[in-house]
């Protein structure tokens, strides 16, 4: 071990990105690799960039569109998430989010006056026709994709591997609190504070844990919220209703083999509500669920020690 790890912070995907390295002399190489991955995913998958591939797909009005391998991979990851969660995680919530008022970058939505909202049905992931071999996608007319969470988590996984390869040391990459690890961890593991909001100070109510590998994701209904004429809305839409998910769990954190799988599990758990505990246990995914009234519950081997909310 060449010394204690070092972390760098910057903005990415409308949230805070963190890059940690086990060899502080290799930070520049690691960060450059991460930036390259961020730029590629942003251009392919952003819902808020007019020049993104996803914007082109969402505007195709039922036509077949040729897309890049990166967007193919991300859409395929979203479809896998839908399959594995029986549709609780569904990329076709784009139109429902727009109807709820989330139609611009969150920095603009969160600061806006309360808006009149509509509830629209979610068409469902089976309306997506993806042909990976041909590199094409076709959405049913009126369907819009939101790849936000899956794209961010997949990008974290890819960025961690790219940065670790470039830097030749252990790397942690966090995009908005969704964390991917690659390479040898620092002695004792990567220290991470688990809280409701990734922008929090490290002394915010939560829990310290260490991770050796894989990924960690946290989803919360307490962030990315905005005022509407029907009360406060959040960004985790239940595909079954087209509304923000019920507030059974305000925050769910899951450790998994990858950041993407962790993110799928946290998003689905918020949607599933009470059923999430049994589901996470059956999958043996170590998880921390914080109820709407602020009580933490630990599942499948997540440590009990040191949780401020337990």
């Amino acid at each position, binding site marked *: 071990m060449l010394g204690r790890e070092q972390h760098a912070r910057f903005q990415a995907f409308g949230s805070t990105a963190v890059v940690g390295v086990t060899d502080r002399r290799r930070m520049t190489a690691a960060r450059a690799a991460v930036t390259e991955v961020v730029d590629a995913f942003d251009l392919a998958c952003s819902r808020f960039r007019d020049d993104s591939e996803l914007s082109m797909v969402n505007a195709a009005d039922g036509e077949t569109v040729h897309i890049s391998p990166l967007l193919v991979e991300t859409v395929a990851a979203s479809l896998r998430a839908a399959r594995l969660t029986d549709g609780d995680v569904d990329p076709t919530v784009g139109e429902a989010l727009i109807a709820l008022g989330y139609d611009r970058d969150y920095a603009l939505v969160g600061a806006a006056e309360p808006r009149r909202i509509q509830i629209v049905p979610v068409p469902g992931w089976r309306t997506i026709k993806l042909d990976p071999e041909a590199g094409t996608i076709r959405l049913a007319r009126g369907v819009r994709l939101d790849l936000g969470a899956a794209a961010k988590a997949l990008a974290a996984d890819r960025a961690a591997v790219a940065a670790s390869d470039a830097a030749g040391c252990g790397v942690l990459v966090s995009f908005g609190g969704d964390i991917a690890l690659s390479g040898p961890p620092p002695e004792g593991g990567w220290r991470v504070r688990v809280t409701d909001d990734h922008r929090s100070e*490290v002394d915010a109510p939560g829990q310290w844990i260490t*991770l050796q590998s894989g990924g960690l994701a946290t989803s919360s209904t307490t962030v990315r919220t905005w005022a509407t004429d029907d009360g406060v809305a959040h960004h985790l839409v239940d595909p079954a209703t087209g509304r923000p998910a019920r507030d059974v769990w305000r925050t769910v954190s899951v450790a998994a083999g990858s950041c993407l799988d962790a993110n799928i599990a946290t998003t689905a758990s918020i949607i599933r509500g009470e059923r999430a505990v049994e589901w996470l246990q059956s999958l043996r995914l170590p998880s921390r669920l914080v109820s709407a009234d602020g009580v933490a519950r630990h599942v499948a081997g997540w440590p009990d020690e040191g949780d401020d909310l337990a």
Partner: protein
Amino acid sequence: MVLFAAMHDARDPRLTADDRSEARLRRDQALRRVGHMRRWVIGSSAALTAGFAVFVAQVAHGRSSSTTARSGASSARQVSQSEPALPAVANPGDLGLQGPDQVPQPAAPSPPQSTPAPSDSSGGGAPAVSGGS
């Protein structure tokens, strides 16, 4: 017939010594021809038997005790052709969400330390925070 005639002549008491000597020569030549023919028949029979055995081993495969490399390779081909094709091996990712190699471990609290505000400069030692975004 030549052989029987030569044997008869060799024993006939009416013949002279020269005639008998000539008859014995003819008998001996005939015996040599019979010996050659018998060897030829035995060799041909052996070759035909071997060829037939190879033919049966290939046509009625699986019932032969042959252990030659040729028949072994043929066996592998025929087994792979006769068994139903197995489905492709599933991508591990399609089998379900993958758990971590190691569960998270509890960590002692760090000394009070503020998370630096996002900036383009390297931050330092503040650990990552996992929370909603």
